């Protein structure tokens, strides 16, 4: 497994897209968070806003870059046919998949941590100017605050899980555009489906089942009782999706002929 890891790391390190996309994760997340922070305001009478969630809203943009990073990690090889070289050099395909997952997780955790820290910093600097003051009941964002720390750490983990989910999907479908389409559907379109259900029970269930809804429960710090799922349970939903995608990918990659 060490060799696979080392090879995949070298491969990831030497692909020029990696640096750009990793930077994009940070920049998109931080910029979108800052943009949201700059546009919300809290009137003097106070407001009912979930400030950590606002400050971390940039994940909506950053997760797209994470997904592309993950998709490229696989489809770049299928697209060129280099996957045959990879599997000829490392015939234990499960280990290759695991190594890819590990490298990607490490990279996303690192990029996600920087992105989240930048977002929190931006929100901490911008929000007080828009009326989110201690006098209004919104002290500046601080990671020393337990729920805020949970939201921040959970956001980093959610990004890593999205990377793994994307990796599994890309390995299963092998085509970059199709994989990106499926992932975008999961991240951006599927969350709407619960709103289409008329029955509140179904709506709740569908909300609990969609990774982009449930996973972001980890960012919530106010009205926790209204959430259909606890913060960590929500993250567990995304984890379950990622695990299922990787399992499916593993089963497919093990048995399937390697086509260029």
């Amino acid at each position, binding site marked *: 497994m060490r060799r696979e890891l080392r090879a995949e790391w070298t491969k990831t390190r030497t692909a020029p897209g990696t640096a750009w996309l990793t930077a994009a994760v940070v920049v998109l997340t931080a910029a979108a968070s800052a943009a949201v922070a700059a546009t919300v*305001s809290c009137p003097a009478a106070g407001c009912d806003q979930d400030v950590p969630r606002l400050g971390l809203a940039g994940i909506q943009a950053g997760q797209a870059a994470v997904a592309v990073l993950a998709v490229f990690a696989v*489809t770049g090889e299928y697209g060129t046919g280099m996957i045959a070289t990879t599997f000829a050099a490392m015939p234990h395909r499960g280990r290759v998949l695991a190594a890819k997952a590990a490298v990607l997780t490490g990279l996303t955790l690192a990029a996600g941590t920087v992105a989240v820290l930048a977002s929190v910093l931006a929100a901490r600097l911008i929000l007080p100017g828009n009326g989110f003051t201690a006098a209004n009941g919104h002290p500046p964002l601080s990671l020393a605050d337990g729920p805020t720390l949970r939201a921040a750490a959970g956001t980093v983990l959610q990004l890593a899980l999205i990377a793994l989910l994307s990796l599994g999907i890309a390995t299963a479908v092998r085509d970059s555009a199709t*994989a990106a389409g499926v992932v975008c559907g999961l991240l951006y379109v599927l969350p709407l*489906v619960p709103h289409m259900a008329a029955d509140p029970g179904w709506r709740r269930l569908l909300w609990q089942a969609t990774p982009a809804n449930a996973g972001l429960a980890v960012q919530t710090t106010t*009205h926790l009782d209204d959430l259909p799922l606890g913060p960590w349970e929500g993250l567990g939903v995304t984890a379950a999706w990622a695990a299922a995608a990787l399992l499916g990918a593993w089963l497919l990659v093990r048995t399937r002929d390697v086509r260029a």
Partner: protein
Amino acid sequence: MTDSTTVVTGHGANGRDGFRHLVHAEWTKFRTVRGWVAGMAVGVALVVALGLMSAAGSHASCGMGDVETACTLTTGPGGEAVSDRFFFVHRRLDGDGSITVRVDSMTGQIRLPDATPGVRNVVAGVVPWAKAGIMVKDGVREGASYAAVMVTARHGVRMQHDFTEDVAGGPGGVSPGSPRWLRLTRSGGTLTGYESDDGRRWIVVGTARPARLPATVEAGMFVASPGDLTVSRGNLGGASVQVRFTEATAVFDQVRLEGRVEGRTGGTWSHDDVGVAYEPGGRTPHHPGRFTESGGTFTITGVGDVAPSTEGMRIESTLSGQAAGLVAVMVVAVLFVTAEHRRGLFRTTLLAAPRRGRAFAAKTVVIGAVAFAAGLTAAALTVPLGARILRANGNAVLPVSTFTELRVVAGVAALTAAVAVLALACGALVRRGAAAVTVVAGLVVVPHILATASVLPLGVARWLLRLTPAAGFAVQQSVPEYAQVLGYYSPQGGYYPLPPLAGLAVLCGYAALAAVLAAVRMSRADA
């Protein structure tokens, strides 16, 4: 026009024929890849299936208390849904004539959210669009044609007719000590509204020609007070809007009715609480209006509004699967171009058509046409069928004109085509499938979803729908925003900040820009 240096392509085909052949070649290329055709079909199927499913799952019933009734909509003379509830003190007027009154005061009360559960929390006050004025109306039937001139609490004097039309007069309301005179004159089919500060110098507020005003109308004083609107944050993100009871009371005097008035001398004023709903049992009116008269002074209390209604589902709410369908279309459009680059087929394409800009233009035409057809199929199936299912399930679906429905369906087709062209161009620019799909989804679908799922503040959401290609979704809005109705006009509620065609134009601008950039890049870069 051809000149002597015409580039001969193929067997001496002229330019236009040459392009036709290119388009034909691209079409053959498209239809012979099973995955692409299937992808488009999946896109259509997603829109239709998700739309009809959500329509089928949406049941509604109306009624008060335990009594359920089907939800009915009152429609105005133009066929649109209207709210027509007010207190009307009137007499019958035959032919031309006029009515003049002085409005002396307007007061009212507003129910706020209960501070202690179960205890009504009522404060004195009037909502901005509380109305008191004079009206001529085709009887007292809800939805009947009318024209009226009125004083409002915060929006000055207005002249309104047939629910949707609204003209502003002078600013300012009424208060004890500064009354306002109003006059409405009928001359044939034309009504003219006047206002005056002193009953002597009259200023025309506006004229109106209501759609169906018969010779004999009811003319009189009316008061209405729309519900108070509060918006609060919902649980799963989103906003919840609550409308609370209000009522307004206005005092009128110096009432003068001229013309052939029924029972001119000694005649009495009739009064109707137009559009009042009844408590279960059908006897007691729910939130009734009332009026008293003493010595030519009328004190009238009214509840409700005389205005277009936006309460109900829209035909475009059946397009809930559109985002999913668009993603499928994007994937196909991107593959249509990136597959060539990856497999080296692009060199073959260039050999067959060395003028690269034209080859790309042909591709654009084909993907645009295919996507238009796909969008048209999807919308033409989903919108009418979905609306039918919604109505069959007891939902009140806001009626729109055939023209509007066609505009929505054709607009969705155009939207799909523009998104496909944008995706194709991004594919040609980026040349990497995943990046292109994500970029286009990030430009089109994501802003729309963020804006309409109201995870964002309202201001941000509106700017997203002005500046990003997601502005194109405006083309599917079937019910306009009415300035004279206080509502939560948010993207979440289906109100876009740009008019339908302007929104579509923004999207098309992005698509055209991307296509030009792609064509330039293509003609410069090595294949």
